[in-house]
């Protein structure tokens, strides 16, 4: 199958001819083809939820801490060591368990793109801005809340202005020392600092662009630039078309190898694949598994892939009949042809997912080992009172399998395979592609999505416990993203409440493992596959590194002559 598609791709006379003719570039410059370019650079702004926008933020701004690098796999992609943190803008830090206070020693001599120097004031400014919840989608506040930073509770949204003041939660000891207090013991503090929602702004430039109506310069950051201390500075930016960065010579870890990075929006994945082959571009992201598979063996190209935190699961809403019946949920778990999906849907670039949290996360337990067994599925359906699916027609609407219509080219084959498999066991399923906005609204806000395929849930906090709280704790007890309306007060809610503040990691891991077994038993999610996060790029490029938000950090990249 592999050779046929390569011949097929290369038979395009135009392509093979051009591939070799790319002229070497004097100043090191790379062009990245992406599905979209940042629609805004403010992580508290309207486009914070869009992955392409997050890529822009992590390029221009720098976090306090990050994960240390671990091993590099055979495709040349380095993965992080989730148990080992390394300082970025922070040089070192210490934690006093008694007073729940973190003290950070900040790096000195760090300059931003506008020449402004980095010091404690910038850190204070960043957290004060987050607490002001003045943006359209206050992600900064949310992460601080998850990390239990003192004072970052829901009361911030009330009318009382004082609640928005940073108070003594984040205090400046001297120009290069900052202290952050937690409200309660919480192991997620350091992980949240690595996330794009708490990147440090450059106070001087930000305050230069504030206005009376917009004191926190949301408009400036959303439409013009995100001033900070990142590895790259902004050259030019045309929304919906193109954004280009140039290396920041004063970056604290030294000047990045690649001088200019340009990202261009090329909507259709097949077009990106074609242009990459012509040599006009150096990196193409977000291709379909088939395209990655055929580019893997093309001349002058390599495909870096890593089993990151991207996964696909089937979501069945507990509040919608017949999914409240555990037998029906177990029957469906045996009706999914995992191998056919991996082979025809992902072209082998995935493995069956047998857990409820990403397998690469600390605290993961392989608790959901469902097997494809149509006979067992039919038997379970019969036990549930629907022999050969008779009686299920009444729930035809519940069996509308929803998925994001914009992802038709990748999810199309998968939902079709599942649709056929479900009908084979008597389940009256139909397909229902809905726009991203409507999908997000019904999944997160209204939580009325009965039956859906979801491949875009990447828990930000790299920790099994965090994922459990976000997705599986009862809605009003902190389960912000409990899209399936699952509620298990004793075995999950209470167990997690204890584990959350458990300082001893061994005890914490045992508790989260037990919870994962319960989730698997109730088939809260039906995990299908963990598919690889991939980038197709010229073989002259190396140094790719994977981060939990799946955005590349351009300063990792090395371009050979």
């Amino acid at each position, binding site marked *: 199958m592999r050779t046929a598609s390569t011949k097929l791709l290369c038979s395009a006379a135009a392509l093979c001819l051009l591939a070799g003719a790319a002229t070497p570039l004097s100043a090191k410059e790379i062009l990245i083809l992406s599905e979209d370019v940042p629609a805004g650079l403010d992580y508290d702004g309207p486009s914070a939820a869009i992955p392409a926008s997050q890529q822009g933020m992590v390029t221009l701004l720098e976090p306090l801490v990050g994960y240390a690098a671990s091993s590099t796999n055979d495709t040349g992609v380095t993965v992080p060591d989730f148990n080992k943190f390394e300082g970025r803008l922070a040089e070192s830090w210490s934690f006093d368990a008694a007073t729940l206070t973190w003290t950070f020693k900040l790096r000195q001599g760090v300059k931003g793109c506008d020449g402004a120097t980095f010091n404690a004031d910038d850190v204070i400014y960043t957290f004060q801005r987050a607490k002001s919840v003045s943006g359209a989608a206050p992600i900064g506040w949310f992460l601080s809340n998850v990390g239990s930073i003192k004072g970052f509770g829901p009361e911030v949204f009330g009318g009382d202005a004082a609640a928005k003041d940073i108070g003594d939660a984040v205090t400046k000891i001297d120009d290069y020392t900052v202290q952050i207090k937690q409200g309660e013991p919480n192991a997620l503090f350091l992980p949240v600092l690595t996330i794009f929602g708490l990147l440090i702004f450059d106070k001087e430039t930000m305050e230069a662009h504030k206005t009376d109506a917009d004191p926190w310069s949301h408009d400036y950051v959303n439409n013009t630039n995100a001033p900070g201390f990142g590895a790259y500075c902004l050259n030019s930016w045309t929304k919906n078309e193109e954004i280009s960065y140039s290396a920041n010579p004063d970056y604290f870890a030294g000047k990045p190898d690649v001088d200019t990075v340009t990202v261009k929006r090329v909507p259709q994945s097949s077009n990106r694949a074609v242009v990459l082959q012509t040599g006009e571009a150096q990196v193409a992201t977000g291709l379909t598994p088939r395209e990655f598979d055929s580019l893997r063996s093309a001349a002058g190209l390599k495909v870096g892939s890593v089993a990151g935190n991207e996964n696909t699961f089937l979501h069945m809403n507990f509040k919608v009949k017949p999914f409240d019946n555990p037998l029906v949920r177990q029957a469906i778990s045996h009706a999914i042809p995992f191998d056919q999906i991996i082979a025809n849907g992902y072209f082998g670039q995935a493995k069956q997912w047998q857990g409820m949290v990403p397998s690469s996360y600390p605290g993961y337990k392989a608790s959901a080992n469902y097997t494809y067994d149509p006979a067992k599925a039919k038997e379970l359906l019969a036990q549930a009172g629907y022999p050969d699916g008779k009686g299920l027609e009444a729930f035809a609407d519940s069996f509308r399998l929803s998925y994001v219509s914009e992802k038709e080219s990748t999810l199309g*084959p998968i939902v079709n395979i599942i649709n056929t498999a479900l009908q084979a066991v008597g389940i009256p399923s139909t397909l229902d592609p809905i726009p991203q906005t409507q999908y997000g609204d019904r999944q997160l806000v209204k939580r009325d999505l009965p039956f859906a395929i979801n491949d875009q849930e990447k828990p930000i906090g790299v920790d099994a416990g965090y994922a459990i709280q976000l997705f599986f704790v009862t809605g009003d007890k902190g389960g912000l993203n409990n899209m399936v309306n699952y509620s298990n007060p004793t075995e999950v809610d209470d167990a997690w409440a204890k584990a959350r503040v458990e300082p001893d990691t061994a005890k914490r891991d045992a508790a989260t493992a037990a919870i994962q077994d319960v989730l698997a038993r109730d088939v809260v999610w039906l995990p299908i596959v963990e598919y690889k996060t991939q980038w197709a790029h010229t073989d002259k490029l190396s140094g790719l590194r994977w981060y939990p938000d799946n955005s590349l950090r351009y300063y990792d990249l090395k371009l050979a002559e």
Partner: protein
Amino acid sequence: MSALPDIDALPALPPKRADWLFRIGLVIVITVTILAAIGPYIGPYDPMLTTVRVAQPPPSLVEIPGLLTSWFAGTLPYPPHFMGTDVSGYDIFSRVIAAPRTDLVIALTANFLSLAVGVFLGLIAGYFRNVATELLMRVSDVMQSFPVFISAMVLVTLAGRSTSNIVIALAFVYIPIYIRLTRAEVLSQKSRGFVEAARAMGNSEIAIALRHVLPNSLTPALIQSSVTIGFAILLTAGLSFVGAGVRPPTPEWGLMISTGANTIILGEWWPSVFPGIAISLTVFGFAVLGNALERRYEDG
């Protein structure tokens, strides 16, 4: 009082070609209608279910006779994919012949819904000229000034991609056309002799409108119908192409083209070429039919 001039020349006669062209149009339309009825059941595969063979190119023409004989003889492991399979493994031939059930039904319902509403409103607007009908015409003008494709897309995407929403979106586009057409014909029929004679005889205005004016004002709308049906099929396919049409896996030509579009640039032409041929032939068939009706009306 000008006496009608005595022209002894005969009217312009239809050139001979109308006949075989009309026959072709008729054959196409009838075939598509039959497929709309039984299409989904006569294909070698169930159009709604995938097979395990993904992106398989179609057999070359020379192989087809051999495939057919061995298929009937039952010696093949699985029924042949005459038009190959698409990226999800669907058999394209079965879906192409099953698509008329979606495309034609949407086009026909949308057309006759807007025909009925349009003719009725057109009759009222043409026959009873008063403030209400003038307002109706202004509203119809506003509806007609909507950008056709974008408004259809807005309606379907926001209201949900069900066939009924597509039919409503199409009707929203066509009702003003039928209103305008019928109103013009009613205005010209309204001043004819037999209408005055009917009034002189003591018919009520409504009786005149329904018994005399309406039957004589239907022809332009009926001729427009065949063009509109063809156009509705194009619009439905266009909506699916931008992801605002029918929901997969419903077999629909536009949807099949749009799925195939992603891979045509990589050389896989068959998933979108065959449904495209089907659309262009069907719409051409309706266009030919419409043209022949129009010519017959001009001479009749």
